């Protein structure tokens, strides 16, 4: 089963939920798909044994062959190539590696080479968690290429927990696409509700079953809860707004470290989810 943990709003507690669920279940594969800012490793403290490069093709331009006709710059939809005077200027951080500049160059002045855009790190966390994370190279916009590299490591017949990036744009959609169920973590505030509604729309469109966890319960108002009740959306768990939980978090410790009764609560969530999964 693939279980993703997402939210619209950032900082609602995706990683907190994903990590504590993994620690409660004990045996699973954990995947940090938030490759722009992966942070689950702070809590799961994996013993990273394998690091693998993620590469993509970048063009380079042969000065002696190029006549600065500008066709490459005109073609590039991402503005990664400009032609100024008799010079081609390439901005690698904007390149999507489509190879279009190579195809349109009438002079054959464009070649390609492999460049590193990020890394996949694999390790093991106690008690029995196979840990994977993607780590995008700062400044690059190739989030999904790194996530696609992570996809290849998804195993069968084991619980997969995916810690998604925030938002509801391409990186989130890519992270949840194969999910059998998605947990949406939100906070009971107008901002939390607004982004929850957008996330729900995305998941409905994709046909992925979902339930809600309300984090920092006690702040804000009742609107998230009212909305869920009115629309028959399962509230899987409420995590109270508790300074102690925050203190443990800030030290990279889990909720289980704070209070072992959370283990049972998270195990129960999994039982609830299994009733509603796709397939």
């Amino acid at each position, binding site marked *: 089963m693939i279980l993703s943990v997402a939210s619209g709003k950032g900082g609602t507690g995706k990683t907190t939920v994903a990590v504590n669920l993994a620690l409660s279940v004990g045996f699973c594969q954990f995947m940090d798909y938030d490759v722009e800012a992966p942070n689950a490793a702070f809590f799961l403290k994996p013993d990273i044994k394998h690091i693998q490069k993620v590469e993509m093709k970048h063009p380079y331009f042969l000065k002696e062959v190029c006549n600065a006709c500008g066709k490459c710059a005109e073609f590039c939809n991402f*503005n990664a190539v400009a032609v100024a005077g008799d010079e081609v200027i390439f901005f690698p951080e*904007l390149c999507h590696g489509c190879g279009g500049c190579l195809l349109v160059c009438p002079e054959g002045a464009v070649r390609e080479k492999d460049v590193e855009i990020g890394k996949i790190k694999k390790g093991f966390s106690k008690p029995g968690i196979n840990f994977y994370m993607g780590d995008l190279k700062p400044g690059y916009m190739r989030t999904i290429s790194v996530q696609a590299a992570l996809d290849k490591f998804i195993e069968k017949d084991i619980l997969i927990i995916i810690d998604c990036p925030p938002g509801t744009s391409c990186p989130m959609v890519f992270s949840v696409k194969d999910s059998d169920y998605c947990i949406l973590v939100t906070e009971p505030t107008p901002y939390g509700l607004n982004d929850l509604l957008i996330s729900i729309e995305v998941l409905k469109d994709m046909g992925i079953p979902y339930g809600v966890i309300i984090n920092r319960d006690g702040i804000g108002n009742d609107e998230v809860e009212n909305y869920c009740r009115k629309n028959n959306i399962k509230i899987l768990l409420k995590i109270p707004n508790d300074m102690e939980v925050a203190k443990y978090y800030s030290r990279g410790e889990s909720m289980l470290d704070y209070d072992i009764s959370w283990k049972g609560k998270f195990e129960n969530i999994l039982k609830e989810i299994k009733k509603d999964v796709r397939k």
Partner: protein
Amino acid sequence: MKVGISSTGTSLESNVDMRFGRCPYFIIYDTESNDFEHIENQSRQAMGGAGIQAAQMIIDKKVGVVITGNVGPNAHRVLGSANIKIYSGITGTVKDAIEKLKKDEFKETAGPDVPSHFGTG
């Protein structure tokens, strides 16, 4: 000589826009004929590389001088490679800016004066 000015509107009474890559319009002014045209800046909505795309457009229009509020590192590099003079930090109306340029009151901008993504959002 043609001058490219980042502008908030389509007339000479419009203000010089503080953003280069994401300004709504460029006024292209010819200092010999005193004619001008306005161009809608297509780069404004670009996901990334707005400055680069705008600079490319300026080059294609055979502009020799750019007047703007701020210019970022990528646009500066592209314009510089095409030997286009950049006057940034300019405020007020487009008309005033052209008058000042004609009277040679501007100092050329040596480097980018804002970091990447300055004009975003």
